């Protein structure tokens, strides 16, 4: 059994709890043990904007807490994964690590460079593996045509991810979707960013980027989009509704978080295990396709 410290981040446990719920359920179902560390704080990614050192210290603080328990981190948010993995990379430099540890001393912590960071999808892809996932499938999702969305920080900066997938031509999420029996649809704007990271400062770029991707995938006769980061989820799902109102559009693309899709295939309860009732765009039509006729 593989054991990880579960890094929830800020947004998932407060705004998108269905991601947390379905991740916990899927991990339990597939033999990944998750340990909660309630000393964890924000990964520091947005603080980098104002003060690089502060962002690095927050990341290092989290790494140190996981290291004290002898655990690697499993993160749900792509951006947390990117920020923490980049911190691991920066802290390989002895001079940087000594400087950071000098400051961590003030709160009684030290990071020795042992704890590593992986995104939940990477853990499912590498630790559980596509074949083992396939053997556990209980519901037939072969009628689902799914548009994958990776999330920028899942694979970038490239130097922080040991080349486990190619950021320019990524495959891992496609394969994870295939493993559930669903069909991953290829589309041109696959690597387009959701715009979430500067959304608090300016909505305009994000509204443009979200519409560009939705326009692209709407032409591909898809049943839903699958994301692996709660910020991407909020941009394509909650903001899809905002965009419909503000720009008089009629987008109607259901968005699932990957553990929710996998959870459906593994036979999870749509509400209690996967929180599908909490998703912003109705999933009733999607679920009817696999014989779940529950009105969420």
């Amino acid at each position: 059994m593989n054991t990880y410290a579960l890094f929830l981040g800020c947004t998932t446990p407060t705004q998108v709890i269905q991601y947390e719920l379905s991740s916990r359920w899927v991990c339990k179902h597939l033999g990944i043990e998750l340990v909660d560390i309630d000393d964890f704080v924000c990964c520091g990614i947005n603080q980098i904007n104002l003060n690089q050192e502060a962002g690095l210290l927050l990341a290092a603080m989290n790494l140190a807490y996981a290291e004290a328990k002898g655990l690697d981190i499993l993160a749900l948010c792509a951006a947390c994964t990117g920020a923490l993995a980049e911190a691991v990379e920066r802290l390989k430099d002895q001079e940087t690590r000594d400087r950071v540890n000098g400051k961590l001393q003030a709160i009684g912590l030290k990071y020795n460079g042992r704890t590593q960071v992986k995104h939940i999808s990477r853990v499912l892809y590498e630790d559980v593996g596509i074949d083992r996932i396939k053997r556990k499938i209980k519901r037939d999702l072969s009628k689902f045509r799914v548009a994958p969305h990776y999330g920028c920080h899942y694979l970038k900066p490239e130097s922080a991810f040991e080349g486990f997938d190619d950021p320019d031509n990524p495959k891992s999420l496609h394969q994870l979707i295939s493993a559930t029996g669903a069909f991953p649809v290829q589309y041109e704007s696959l690597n387009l960013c959701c715009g979430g990271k500067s959304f608090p400062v300016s909505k305009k770029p994000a509204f443009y980027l979200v519409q560009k991707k939705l326009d692209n995938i709407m032409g591909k006769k898809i049943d839903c989009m699958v994301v692996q980061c709660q910020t991407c989820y909020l941009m394509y799902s909650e903001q899809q509704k905002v965009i419909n109102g503000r720009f008089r559009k009629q987008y109607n693309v259901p968005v699932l978080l990957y553990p929710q899709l996998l959870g459906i295939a593994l036979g999870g309860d749509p509400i209690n295990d996967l929180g599908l009732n909490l998703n912003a765009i109705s999933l009733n039509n999607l679920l009817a396709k696999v014989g779940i006729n529950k009105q969420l």
Partner: protein
Amino acid sequence: MKQDNSQREPIQVSKLDPNFRSEVIKHKDARGLNACFACGTCTAGCSISEVFPEYSPKKLAKMVKLGMKKEVLSSPYIWYCVTCHNCEQHCPQNVKFFNILNVLKNMAAEKGYAPSPWVEQTQQIMQTGIIFPMDEALMKKRKSFFLPTLRGDGKKAKKLIELTGLDKIKAKK
């Protein structure tokens, strides 16, 4: 997207800050700037340049080299970056523009140009440890799904933030 094609004012050498470049490159994270040969691959791949032609990694790099300190640090566009890392993904010189931009944003924040959302998030982290408040309604909702309670303690994060001076950064009015 409507583009602003009007010609800019000529650059006045007397208004440039010749020390700006070295001030930036002094930071280890920005040293890559010296390797940039201004090919523009960064801008070609930029998610934001397409929407806001005013924002261009290539242009910013050139402006730093010329010493256009005030123009760079006061530009609202430097905050529009979505951090997609595309600028550095195909850079033939392996310049990490994402890191250079962070150096510029850090300098701009020191000069009083920090956007309020980032300052507010920092204040929140010092309270709850994360960028959101935690209230009764949230705890109730989490409980109804049998999710563990969140501790919401920002004291240690606050201590670290204070060590860097980030707590002193004021938002642009």
